[in-house]
Protein backbone atom coordinates (compact mmCIF):
# COMPACT_ATOMS: atom_id res chain seq x y z
CA UNK A 1 0.00 0.00 0.00
CA UNK A 2 1.48 3.31 -1.08
CA UNK A 3 0.35 6.89 -0.77
CA UNK A 4 -0.14 8.57 -4.14
CA UNK A 5 3.06 10.34 -5.16
CA UNK A 6 1.50 13.77 -5.51
CA UNK A 7 -0.12 13.78 -2.07
CA UNK A 8 1.41 16.51 0.07
CA UNK A 9 1.79 15.84 3.80
CA UNK A 10 2.98 18.63 6.07
CA UNK A 11 4.81 18.23 9.36
CA UNK A 12 1.70 19.42 11.15
CA UNK A 13 -0.40 16.54 9.82
CA UNK A 14 -2.14 18.38 7.00
CA UNK A 15 -2.77 16.28 3.88
CA UNK A 16 -3.55 17.89 0.53
CA UNK A 17 -4.66 15.95 -2.53
CA UNK A 18 -3.86 18.25 -5.48
CA UNK A 19 -6.02 16.27 -7.92
CA UNK A 20 -9.27 16.47 -5.98
CA UNK A 21 -8.45 19.66 -4.07
CA UNK A 22 -9.50 17.95 -0.84
CA UNK A 23 -7.54 18.34 2.38
CA UNK A 24 -7.54 16.42 5.64
CA UNK A 25 -5.95 16.71 9.04
CA UNK A 26 -4.28 13.88 10.93
CA UNK A 27 -3.86 13.43 14.64
CA UNK A 28 -0.29 12.70 15.84
CA UNK A 29 -0.60 8.90 15.63
CA UNK A 30 -2.20 9.15 12.18
CA UNK A 31 0.70 11.37 11.17
CA UNK A 32 3.21 8.75 12.39
CA UNK A 33 1.51 6.02 10.37
CA UNK A 34 1.32 8.14 7.21
CA UNK A 35 5.01 9.06 7.60
CA UNK A 36 5.88 5.35 7.74
CA UNK A 37 3.66 4.74 4.70
CA UNK A 38 5.47 7.48 2.82
CA UNK A 39 8.75 5.71 3.61
CA UNK A 40 7.35 2.80 1.62
CA UNK A 41 6.93 0.41 4.55
CA UNK A 42 4.25 -2.26 4.36
CA UNK A 43 1.41 -2.84 6.81
CA UNK A 44 3.18 -5.52 8.82
CA UNK A 45 6.28 -3.44 9.39
CA UNK A 46 4.18 -0.39 10.31
CA UNK A 47 2.17 -2.45 12.74
CA UNK A 48 5.40 -3.78 14.29
CA UNK A 49 6.84 -0.30 14.70
CA UNK A 50 3.72 0.99 16.45
CA UNK A 51 3.58 -2.06 18.73
CA UNK A 52 7.21 -1.50 19.73
CA UNK A 53 6.58 2.11 20.57
CA UNK A 54 3.14 2.09 22.21
CA UNK A 55 1.40 0.01 24.84
CA UNK A 56 -1.38 -1.40 22.70
CA UNK A 57 -2.76 -4.88 22.06
CA UNK A 58 -1.95 -6.27 18.62
CA UNK A 59 -5.59 -7.10 17.83
CA UNK A 60 -6.80 -3.64 18.81
CA UNK A 61 -4.08 -1.92 16.81
CA UNK A 62 -4.76 -3.99 13.71
CA UNK A 63 -8.46 -3.20 13.85
CA UNK A 64 -7.76 0.53 14.01
CA UNK A 65 -5.06 0.26 11.36
CA UNK A 66 -7.39 -1.46 8.88
CA UNK A 67 -10.03 1.19 9.55
CA UNK A 68 -7.49 3.91 8.96
CA UNK A 69 -6.18 2.37 5.72
CA UNK A 70 -9.79 1.88 4.64
CA UNK A 71 -10.32 5.62 5.09
CA UNK A 72 -7.19 6.45 3.10
CA UNK A 73 -8.53 4.24 0.28
CA UNK A 74 -11.97 5.78 0.50
CA UNK A 75 -10.47 9.25 0.15
CA UNK A 76 -8.47 8.00 -2.86
CA UNK A 77 -5.13 8.83 -1.31
CA UNK A 78 -3.67 5.39 -2.12
CA UNK A 79 -2.00 4.45 -5.44
CA UNK A 80 -4.60 2.89 -7.75
CA UNK A 81 -2.56 -0.28 -8.30
CA UNK A 82 -2.89 -0.95 -4.58
CA UNK A 83 -6.65 -0.59 -4.67
CA UNK A 84 -7.21 -3.69 -6.81
Amino acid sequence: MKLKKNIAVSETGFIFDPTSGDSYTLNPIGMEIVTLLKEGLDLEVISGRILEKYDVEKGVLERYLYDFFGQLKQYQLIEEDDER
Partner: protein
Amino acid sequence: MMKDEITIAVSGLNNVDSPGPGIPVVRGIRDSEYFEPRIVGLVYENLEPGAYMHDHVDKSYKVPYPSEGSGVLMERIRDIHAKESIDVLIPNFDSELYAFMKSEPELKRLGIHTFLPTLQQFEERHKSNLPEFGEKYKVKVPESRAITSIQEIKELEEDYEYPMVIKGKFYDAFIAYSFEQAQIYFNKIASKWGLPIVVQQYIRGTEVNVVALGDGRGNTVGAVPMKKQYITDKGKAWGGITLDDPKMLDLTRHIIGQTKWRGGMELELIRTDKKELYLIEINPRLPAWVYLAVGAGQNLPEALVKLALGYPVETFTAYTVGILFIRYSYDMICSLQDFQSLTTRGEL
Protein backbone atom coordinates in the same frame (compact mmCIF):
# COMPACT_ATOMS: atom_id res chain seq x y z
CA MET B 1 10.77 48.88 -18.20
CA MET B 2 8.50 51.52 -19.69
CA LYS B 3 4.89 50.48 -19.46
CA ASP B 4 2.32 50.98 -22.21
CA GLU B 5 -0.20 53.60 -21.16
CA ILE B 6 -3.58 52.35 -22.32
CA THR B 7 -7.22 52.94 -21.53
CA ILE B 8 -9.28 49.86 -20.86
CA ALA B 9 -13.07 49.86 -20.48
CA VAL B 10 -14.40 47.08 -18.27
CA SER B 11 -17.91 46.04 -17.27
CA GLY B 12 -19.07 43.55 -14.63
CA LEU B 13 -18.20 45.79 -11.69
CA ASN B 14 -20.99 44.36 -9.54
CA ASN B 15 -18.78 43.01 -6.78
CA VAL B 16 -21.74 41.70 -4.83
CA ASP B 17 -22.62 38.25 -3.44
CA SER B 18 -22.91 36.94 -6.99
CA PRO B 19 -20.01 38.95 -8.33
CA GLY B 20 -19.19 39.96 -11.87
CA PRO B 21 -15.64 39.40 -13.11
CA GLY B 22 -14.88 43.12 -13.63
CA ILE B 23 -12.82 43.90 -10.53
CA PRO B 24 -10.77 40.65 -10.64
CA VAL B 25 -10.03 41.36 -14.31
CA VAL B 26 -8.96 44.90 -13.39
CA ARG B 27 -6.72 43.58 -10.59
CA GLY B 28 -4.97 41.30 -13.06
CA ILE B 29 -4.40 44.16 -15.49
CA ARG B 30 -3.16 46.44 -12.70
CA ASP B 31 -0.63 43.73 -11.74
CA SER B 32 0.76 43.85 -15.28
CA GLU B 33 4.40 44.65 -15.93
CA TYR B 34 3.56 45.75 -19.47
CA PHE B 35 0.62 48.08 -19.03
CA GLU B 36 -0.05 51.25 -17.12
CA PRO B 37 -3.81 51.22 -17.48
CA ARG B 38 -6.47 53.84 -17.06
CA ILE B 39 -9.53 51.83 -16.16
CA VAL B 40 -12.91 53.06 -17.33
CA GLY B 41 -15.82 51.27 -15.67
CA LEU B 42 -19.05 50.62 -17.53
CA VAL B 43 -21.84 50.19 -15.01
CA TYR B 44 -25.53 49.39 -15.30
CA GLU B 45 -26.62 50.20 -11.76
CA ASN B 46 -25.95 53.14 -9.42
CA LEU B 47 -24.74 50.85 -6.64
CA GLU B 48 -22.28 48.66 -8.51
CA PRO B 49 -19.42 48.66 -6.00
CA GLY B 50 -16.67 48.77 -8.62
CA ALA B 51 -17.63 52.30 -9.62
CA TYR B 52 -16.77 53.45 -6.09
CA MET B 53 -13.51 51.48 -5.87
CA HIS B 54 -11.28 54.31 -6.98
CA ASP B 55 -8.05 52.37 -6.42
CA HIS B 56 -9.18 50.00 -9.13
CA VAL B 57 -11.42 52.03 -11.41
CA ASP B 58 -10.36 55.53 -12.50
CA LYS B 59 -13.65 56.67 -14.00
CA SER B 60 -17.07 55.09 -14.37
CA TYR B 61 -19.96 55.66 -16.74
CA LYS B 62 -23.51 54.37 -16.62
CA VAL B 63 -24.46 52.43 -19.73
CA PRO B 64 -27.90 51.26 -20.90
CA TYR B 65 -28.84 47.60 -20.51
CA PRO B 66 -28.12 45.50 -23.61
CA SER B 67 -31.82 44.59 -23.66
CA GLU B 68 -32.45 48.17 -24.83
CA GLY B 69 -30.67 47.25 -28.06
CA SER B 70 -27.09 47.27 -29.25
CA GLY B 71 -27.72 50.59 -31.08
CA VAL B 72 -28.42 52.45 -27.82
CA LEU B 73 -25.49 50.76 -26.09
CA MET B 74 -23.12 51.62 -28.92
CA GLU B 75 -24.28 55.22 -28.94
CA ARG B 76 -23.28 55.47 -25.28
CA ILE B 77 -19.96 53.73 -25.98
CA ARG B 78 -19.24 56.28 -28.74
CA ASP B 79 -19.92 59.13 -26.27
CA ILE B 80 -17.61 57.61 -23.68
CA HIS B 81 -14.96 56.88 -26.31
CA ALA B 82 -15.02 60.53 -27.40
CA LYS B 83 -14.03 61.50 -23.84
CA GLU B 84 -11.78 58.60 -22.93
CA SER B 85 -10.19 57.21 -26.13
CA ILE B 86 -10.73 53.60 -25.19
CA ASP B 87 -8.02 51.24 -26.46
CA VAL B 88 -9.47 47.95 -25.25
CA LEU B 89 -12.99 46.97 -24.19
CA ILE B 90 -13.54 43.93 -21.98
CA PRO B 91 -17.23 43.08 -21.51
CA ASN B 92 -17.69 40.72 -18.58
CA PHE B 93 -21.39 39.85 -18.65
CA ASP B 94 -22.79 36.99 -20.71
CA SER B 95 -25.89 39.08 -21.36
CA GLU B 96 -23.98 41.94 -23.03
CA LEU B 97 -21.58 39.83 -25.08
CA TYR B 98 -23.96 39.39 -27.99
CA ALA B 99 -24.39 43.14 -28.38
CA PHE B 100 -20.64 43.74 -28.30
CA MET B 101 -19.86 40.84 -30.62
CA LYS B 102 -22.34 42.21 -33.13
CA SER B 103 -20.74 45.64 -32.81
CA GLU B 104 -17.17 44.38 -33.14
CA PRO B 105 -16.61 45.81 -36.66
CA GLU B 106 -17.78 49.24 -35.53
CA LEU B 107 -15.72 49.09 -32.36
CA LYS B 108 -12.71 48.22 -34.50
CA ARG B 109 -13.43 51.13 -36.81
CA LEU B 110 -13.48 53.42 -33.75
CA GLY B 111 -10.11 52.05 -32.67
CA ILE B 112 -11.54 50.04 -29.74
CA HIS B 113 -9.96 46.59 -29.56
CA THR B 114 -11.80 43.57 -28.21
CA PHE B 115 -10.99 39.88 -28.02
CA LEU B 116 -14.33 38.12 -27.98
CA PRO B 117 -15.60 34.73 -29.08
CA THR B 118 -17.11 34.63 -32.55
CA LEU B 119 -20.89 34.60 -32.86
CA GLN B 120 -20.73 30.94 -33.90
CA GLN B 121 -18.64 30.01 -30.86
CA PHE B 122 -20.97 31.99 -28.62
CA GLU B 123 -24.11 30.40 -30.03
CA GLU B 124 -23.03 26.78 -30.19
CA ARG B 125 -21.88 26.65 -26.56
CA HIS B 126 -25.26 27.92 -25.32
CA LYS B 127 -26.71 25.76 -22.56
CA SER B 128 -29.62 24.91 -24.84
CA ASN B 129 -27.18 23.67 -27.54
CA LEU B 130 -24.97 21.64 -25.21
CA PRO B 131 -26.01 18.17 -26.49
CA GLU B 132 -25.13 19.16 -30.08
CA PHE B 133 -21.89 20.75 -28.84
CA GLY B 134 -20.93 17.53 -27.05
CA GLU B 135 -21.62 15.44 -30.12
CA LYS B 136 -19.81 17.74 -32.51
CA TYR B 137 -16.66 18.08 -30.44
CA LYS B 138 -16.68 14.63 -28.80
CA VAL B 139 -17.10 15.92 -25.27
CA LYS B 140 -19.17 14.19 -22.58
CA VAL B 141 -22.17 16.33 -21.64
CA PRO B 142 -25.28 15.59 -19.59
CA GLU B 143 -28.48 15.14 -21.53
CA SER B 144 -30.45 18.34 -21.60
CA ARG B 145 -33.36 19.99 -23.30
CA ALA B 146 -34.52 23.57 -23.70
CA ILE B 147 -38.17 24.02 -22.77
CA THR B 148 -40.64 26.89 -22.85
CA SER B 149 -43.51 25.56 -20.74
CA ILE B 150 -43.98 23.81 -17.40
CA GLN B 151 -45.94 21.06 -19.13
CA GLU B 152 -42.73 20.00 -20.88
CA ILE B 153 -41.18 19.13 -17.51
CA LYS B 154 -43.90 16.50 -17.08
CA GLU B 155 -43.07 15.12 -20.50
CA LEU B 156 -39.39 15.01 -19.62
CA GLU B 157 -40.14 12.78 -16.63
CA GLU B 158 -40.39 9.90 -19.10
CA ASP B 159 -36.73 10.33 -20.05
CA TYR B 160 -35.10 11.91 -17.00
CA GLU B 161 -35.21 10.97 -13.36
CA TYR B 162 -35.24 13.41 -10.47
CA PRO B 163 -33.21 15.25 -9.44
CA MET B 164 -33.08 17.41 -12.57
CA VAL B 165 -31.13 20.63 -12.94
CA ILE B 166 -33.26 23.64 -13.94
CA LYS B 167 -31.19 26.39 -15.55
CA GLY B 168 -31.69 29.90 -16.87
CA LYS B 169 -30.38 30.76 -20.32
CA PHE B 170 -27.79 33.15 -18.89
CA TYR B 171 -27.59 32.61 -15.15
CA ASP B 172 -29.01 30.62 -12.24
CA ALA B 173 -29.32 26.89 -11.77
CA PHE B 174 -31.33 24.90 -9.24
CA ILE B 175 -31.54 21.20 -8.46
CA ALA B 176 -35.15 20.05 -8.40
CA TYR B 177 -36.03 16.83 -6.57
CA SER B 178 -39.70 16.79 -7.57
CA PHE B 179 -42.08 18.21 -10.16
CA GLU B 180 -43.29 20.76 -7.61
CA GLN B 181 -39.77 22.06 -7.08
CA ALA B 182 -39.06 22.05 -10.82
CA GLN B 183 -42.21 24.12 -11.36
CA ILE B 184 -41.14 26.70 -8.75
CA TYR B 185 -37.64 27.01 -10.23
CA PHE B 186 -39.04 27.22 -13.78
CA ASN B 187 -41.18 30.22 -12.80
CA LYS B 188 -38.46 31.83 -10.72
CA ILE B 189 -35.87 31.68 -13.51
CA ALA B 190 -38.30 32.49 -16.33
CA SER B 191 -39.44 35.69 -14.58
CA LYS B 192 -35.82 36.80 -14.16
CA TRP B 193 -34.06 35.67 -17.33
CA GLY B 194 -36.86 34.74 -19.70
CA LEU B 195 -37.27 31.61 -21.79
CA PRO B 196 -36.13 29.05 -22.72
CA ILE B 197 -35.35 27.17 -19.54
CA VAL B 198 -32.81 24.39 -19.83
CA VAL B 199 -33.51 21.13 -18.02
CA GLN B 200 -30.40 19.04 -17.54
CA GLN B 201 -29.88 15.49 -16.37
CA TYR B 202 -28.23 15.59 -12.95
CA ILE B 203 -24.71 14.14 -12.94
CA ARG B 204 -23.52 12.94 -9.55
CA GLY B 205 -20.00 14.02 -8.72
CA THR B 206 -17.82 16.94 -7.76
CA GLU B 207 -18.02 20.26 -9.54
CA VAL B 208 -14.67 21.47 -10.82
CA ASN B 209 -13.90 24.45 -13.03
CA VAL B 210 -11.26 25.69 -15.42
CA VAL B 211 -10.49 29.28 -16.37
CA ALA B 212 -8.82 29.44 -19.77
CA LEU B 213 -7.89 31.74 -22.62
CA GLY B 214 -7.91 30.75 -26.28
CA ASP B 215 -6.01 32.67 -28.96
CA GLY B 216 -8.66 32.11 -31.65
CA ARG B 217 -6.34 29.84 -33.66
CA GLY B 218 -6.82 26.73 -31.55
CA ASN B 219 -4.08 27.37 -29.00
CA THR B 220 -4.66 27.49 -25.27
CA VAL B 221 -2.75 30.51 -23.98
CA GLY B 222 -3.36 29.53 -20.37
CA ALA B 223 -5.60 27.36 -18.22
CA VAL B 224 -5.96 26.86 -14.47
CA PRO B 225 -8.23 24.22 -12.90
CA MET B 226 -9.97 24.92 -9.59
CA LYS B 227 -12.30 23.27 -7.13
CA LYS B 228 -14.73 25.38 -5.16
CA GLN B 229 -14.04 24.99 -1.45
CA TYR B 230 -16.99 26.96 -0.20
CA ILE B 231 -20.18 27.64 -2.13
CA THR B 232 -22.70 30.33 -1.28
CA ASP B 233 -26.45 29.86 -1.36
CA LYS B 234 -26.30 31.38 -4.84
CA GLY B 235 -23.92 28.64 -5.96
CA LYS B 236 -20.96 31.00 -6.19
CA ALA B 237 -17.49 30.11 -5.03
CA TRP B 238 -16.49 31.92 -1.86
CA GLY B 239 -13.26 29.97 -1.71
CA GLY B 240 -11.43 27.76 -4.17
CA ILE B 241 -8.15 25.93 -4.65
CA THR B 242 -6.02 25.27 -7.74
CA LEU B 243 -5.78 21.62 -8.79
CA ASP B 244 -3.20 19.42 -10.44
CA ASP B 245 -5.42 17.54 -12.87
CA PRO B 246 -3.93 16.79 -16.30
CA LYS B 247 -7.27 15.37 -17.52
CA MET B 248 -9.00 18.70 -16.94
CA LEU B 249 -6.26 20.50 -18.83
CA ASP B 250 -6.38 17.97 -21.69
CA LEU B 251 -10.13 18.48 -21.98
CA THR B 252 -9.68 22.27 -21.98
CA ARG B 253 -7.04 22.10 -24.71
CA HIS B 254 -9.26 19.74 -26.69
CA ILE B 255 -12.23 22.12 -26.52
CA ILE B 256 -10.18 25.21 -27.34
CA GLY B 257 -8.33 23.35 -30.10
CA GLN B 258 -11.51 22.05 -31.70
CA THR B 259 -13.56 25.23 -31.42
CA LYS B 260 -10.61 27.60 -32.01
CA TRP B 261 -12.01 29.49 -29.04
CA ARG B 262 -11.26 33.19 -29.04
CA GLY B 263 -11.10 34.95 -25.67
CA GLY B 264 -11.62 34.03 -22.07
CA MET B 265 -13.77 31.13 -20.95
CA GLU B 266 -14.79 29.16 -17.92
CA LEU B 267 -15.53 25.48 -18.14
CA GLU B 268 -17.91 24.07 -15.57
CA LEU B 269 -17.32 20.35 -15.21
CA ILE B 270 -18.54 17.48 -13.07
CA ARG B 271 -15.99 14.83 -12.14
CA THR B 272 -17.81 11.59 -11.37
CA ASP B 273 -16.61 8.92 -8.95
CA LYS B 274 -15.33 7.02 -11.99
CA LYS B 275 -13.23 10.12 -12.72
CA GLU B 276 -15.09 10.91 -15.92
CA LEU B 277 -15.43 14.58 -16.76
CA TYR B 278 -18.77 15.93 -17.94
CA LEU B 279 -19.00 19.40 -19.40
CA ILE B 280 -22.03 21.11 -17.93
CA GLU B 281 -21.46 24.65 -19.14
CA ILE B 282 -19.08 26.96 -20.99
CA ASN B 283 -19.17 30.56 -19.85
CA PRO B 284 -17.89 32.70 -22.71
CA ARG B 285 -15.76 35.08 -20.61
CA LEU B 286 -13.31 35.10 -17.76
CA PRO B 287 -15.03 34.15 -14.48
CA ALA B 288 -15.17 36.16 -11.24
CA TRP B 289 -12.49 33.89 -9.72
CA VAL B 290 -9.97 34.69 -12.48
CA TYR B 291 -7.67 36.43 -9.99
CA LEU B 292 -6.85 32.97 -8.60
CA ALA B 293 -5.20 32.22 -11.96
CA VAL B 294 -3.24 35.49 -11.67
CA GLY B 295 -2.15 34.47 -8.17
CA ALA B 296 -1.17 31.04 -9.47
CA GLY B 297 1.13 32.59 -12.08
CA GLN B 298 -1.09 33.00 -15.13
CA ASN B 299 -2.14 36.59 -15.66
CA LEU B 300 -4.92 35.78 -18.09
CA PRO B 301 -6.53 39.29 -18.03
CA GLU B 302 -3.19 40.80 -19.07
CA ALA B 303 -2.78 38.17 -21.81
CA LEU B 304 -6.32 38.96 -23.00
CA VAL B 305 -5.42 42.65 -23.35
CA LYS B 306 -2.28 41.73 -25.31
CA LEU B 307 -4.29 39.50 -27.64
CA ALA B 308 -6.83 42.29 -28.16
CA LEU B 309 -4.02 44.68 -29.11
CA GLY B 310 -2.39 42.10 -31.39
CA TYR B 311 0.75 41.84 -29.25
CA PRO B 312 2.63 38.55 -29.12
CA VAL B 313 1.57 36.36 -26.21
CA GLU B 314 3.57 33.54 -24.70
CA THR B 315 1.74 30.39 -23.69
CA PHE B 316 1.65 29.77 -19.96
CA THR B 317 3.10 26.37 -19.19
CA ALA B 318 2.79 26.18 -15.41
CA TYR B 319 0.85 27.42 -12.41
CA THR B 320 1.05 26.93 -8.67
CA VAL B 321 -0.99 23.99 -7.44
CA GLY B 322 -2.71 24.16 -4.06
CA ILE B 323 -3.20 27.88 -3.64
CA LEU B 324 -6.52 29.26 -2.54
CA PHE B 325 -8.67 32.28 -2.96
CA ILE B 326 -11.01 33.32 -0.19
CA ARG B 327 -13.51 36.00 -1.04
CA TYR B 328 -14.56 38.55 1.53
CA SER B 329 -17.05 41.33 1.86
CA TYR B 330 -16.04 44.81 2.87
CA ASP B 331 -18.03 47.92 3.62
CA MET B 332 -16.82 50.93 1.68
CA ILE B 333 -17.69 54.36 2.95
CA CYS B 334 -18.75 56.45 -0.01
CA SER B 335 -19.62 60.10 -0.29
CA LEU B 336 -23.07 61.25 -1.24
CA GLN B 337 -21.47 63.31 -4.01
CA ASP B 338 -20.14 60.16 -5.66
CA PHE B 339 -23.54 58.48 -5.52
CA GLN B 340 -25.22 61.66 -6.71
CA SER B 341 -22.80 62.03 -9.60
CA LEU B 342 -23.39 58.51 -10.89
CA THR B 343 -27.16 58.81 -10.38
CA THR B 344 -27.72 62.17 -12.00
CA ARG B 345 -24.84 62.68 -14.42
CA GLY B 346 -24.26 59.01 -15.22
CA GLU B 347 -20.58 59.26 -14.49
CA LEU B 348 -18.20 59.14 -11.58
